[in-house]
């Protein structure tokens, strides 16, 4: 129950940013449409698949430990951790790609150069900076959550290797799984809002 309440606070934490997104989108829809082109939906889509896969493996790991299958638990937890790692790696390339062309959040926003058929300088219009500020803040804070999740998974894996869990006691696995599903769900909202529409 404590975990569920914590997840509610997490949703509210992100809700503030979703509100900011909505407000600016309503005010400047055309800028947001245009700026979203700079985000590569293929990379975003890849990350979505990776995260969805990791959600599956977390669910599987809980299923296995319920049946006292410790090996299945361990394998699935490790796959989850690897998926999270892939997600962050892709994010890293996305971020550095943006930074290379001067797409920084806020006042340092100064797009330049040409890449992937986009003339970055053309995106230097009013309020495009806001879009990228919101993009960086939302995905950044989401990324922090992924990193925290990776830390917790590492701890869970170490405990799983020591054989701490069984069908009698697997609360930490279950709670971490809940947290991880939430991180996934938030991404599932972030992806279409930022990349697709």
């Amino acid at each position, binding site marked *: 129950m404590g975990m569920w309440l914590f997840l509610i606070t997490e949703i509210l934490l992100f809700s503030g940013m979703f509100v900011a997104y909505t*407000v600016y989108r309503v005010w400047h829809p055309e800028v947001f449409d245009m700026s979203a082109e700079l985000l590569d939906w293929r990379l975003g889509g890849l990350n979505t698949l990776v995260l969805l896969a990791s959600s599956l493996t977390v669910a599987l790991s809980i299923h296995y430990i319920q049946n006292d299958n410790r090996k299945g638990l361990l394998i699935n937890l490790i796959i989850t951790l690897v998926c999270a790692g892939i997600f962050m790696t892709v994010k890293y390339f996305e971020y550095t790609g943006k930074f290379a062309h001067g797409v920084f959040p806020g006042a340092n926003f100064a797009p330049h150069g040409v890449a992937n058929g986009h003339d970055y300088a053309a995106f230097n219009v009013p309020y495009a900076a806001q879009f990228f500020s919101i993009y960086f803040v939302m995905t950044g804070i989401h990324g922090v959550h992924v990193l925290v999740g990776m830390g917790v998974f590492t701890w869970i894996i170490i405990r799983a290797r020591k054989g701490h869990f069984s069908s009698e006691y697997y609360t930490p696995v279950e709670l971490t799984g809940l947290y991880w599903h939430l991180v996934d769900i938030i991404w599932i909202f972030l992806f279409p809002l930022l990349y697709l529409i």
Partner: protein
Amino acid sequence: MSCASAAPCEDAIARCARGRGTNNKNLMIMSNTATSAVGAATGAHPHASLNYINHDKSLKSWLLTLDHKRIGIMYMVTVSLAFLAGGILALFVRAELIAPGRTLMDAHTYNQLFSLHGIIMVFAFIIPSIPAVMGNFVLPLHLGAKDVAFPRLNLASYYIYVLGIAIVLMGMFFGSVDTGWTFYTPYSETVGTSVLFVTLGVFVAGFSSILTGLNFIVTVHKMRAPGLTWNRLPLFVWSIYATSIVQVLATPVIGITMVLLFLERLLHIGIFDPSLGGDPVLFQHFFWFYSHPAVYIMILPAFGVISELMATFSRRPVMGYQFVALSSVAIAFLGFLVWGHHMFVSGQSAVSSIVFSLITYLIGIPTGVKVINWVGTMYKGSVWLRTPMLYALAFLFLFSIGGFTGIMLGVLAIDVHLHDTYFVVAHFHYVMMGGTVIAALGGLHYWWPKITGRMYKETPARIAVALIFIGFNVTFFTQFILGSQGMPRRYYDYLPEFASLHALSTYGSWILAAGLFLAAGNLLVSLFRGAKAPANPWGAATLEWTDTTPMPDPHNFKRMPIVTRGPYDFHLVDDLFSGDGGDGAPATTLQGAGPTS
């Protein structure tokens, strides 16, 4: 002072029955309690002196304790220090305002002092005051539980709170903050260096608030003693429960607001900064979406304390128990829908102003229900004017004034005139200080014997109540007048026609401070010289008073309480869950000679 023999006690009861004009039923209960007191006194237990305070005296056992009672006491010490610091700042602010022009300090220092006063009082003192101090101490006892649901989390939230306050203080020492406690953009983005520290500190302290709220919600759901149904919960528990919901739902929003403000300053992300195309009014929306519910985080626990005091010292069940309980939840819910009334002049649309204004009136209904029920509780009760009850009565007066002026400020046309004047300052001081601080003091005097095992002296405590009540009104009622005449808040200087009222307000602040120091001194002296407190000095009916004083360690009750009655069934108070010798003898003891003393 417990009764050494039966005779004086019987005398006291006879006197008290006469003095109050109580009916036979009451008299019977009292005799019951008197005989039992004798029983308790004679059957002294060899280990009775071992309790949660003295079972392990090392510093480490305090700093790393998982005991909710000790954590509550650590909060009490920290929060009191914050109150002292904020209070001293307030005295300086008032002293500067005693005369027009420069009196003590320059304008910049003045701006910093009132900002720090606000930030410390709101984030370091009032928000954790009743929930973290009394909530921690009393809530598990009210539930008949061994501890809160997550004791480690509880300790963690204390240290997170301390860390947050430390970061805020670092900001104070290494820079300056003169934004007021509201950090309105764009000013807060352009000025001072330590807004960064302070927003970070507020963010961290917010986590402590979230974790405490989360802990309490789970505790109330999962840790109730057998037989303690929702309708038998003391009203203090209900109000803490409602508070916790607000804490859990609202605090993350201030968290993200502070993060965005932090990033705004660090990276200039341009969400709130108009020079980059951002919208400062959006900041106000975010800020008040938390900070208005936060007002109910501050006041709801006070309602709970007052309900306890009213019932105990009127010796009647709280009138309309369910109404009072659910009005707390209603206030918590409505509190989320009124943030816009802080922004009537910030350029929001007329329609939303009207809607926010209407919902603001609605909040008056559950609040009015509470006040009427408290007054109704005293009606035909035998009111016993001990110090905690005096605080409760002071609360009724001051909070009612604060509440009514709140409704006045919710009226659109009036608010445009009074916005950002001393009227607003006086209003929220009547609610926050006249409401919450008075209730906290009342609660402190009520639970003090339970917490420390010592009785304080009654006469100085009463003088302190009088000084606080008079000083408070002199300080802040004058500000209502100043505000209605147009004195703007936060100003360093003012026109000569306001001079006499400003001076009066400053004199009031000295009376108020004298009262507070007297109350604090009296309590502190009682730690060393106070008489040993009996188990139930007030004849209260909630579970914590059925326990020995102070509570045993490690667990709160020597026997698991099985609850068979409501929290205010004073005629059924005969159970004891932690008694001496375990003979089940009730240890209720009358303190003093009753209501006429």
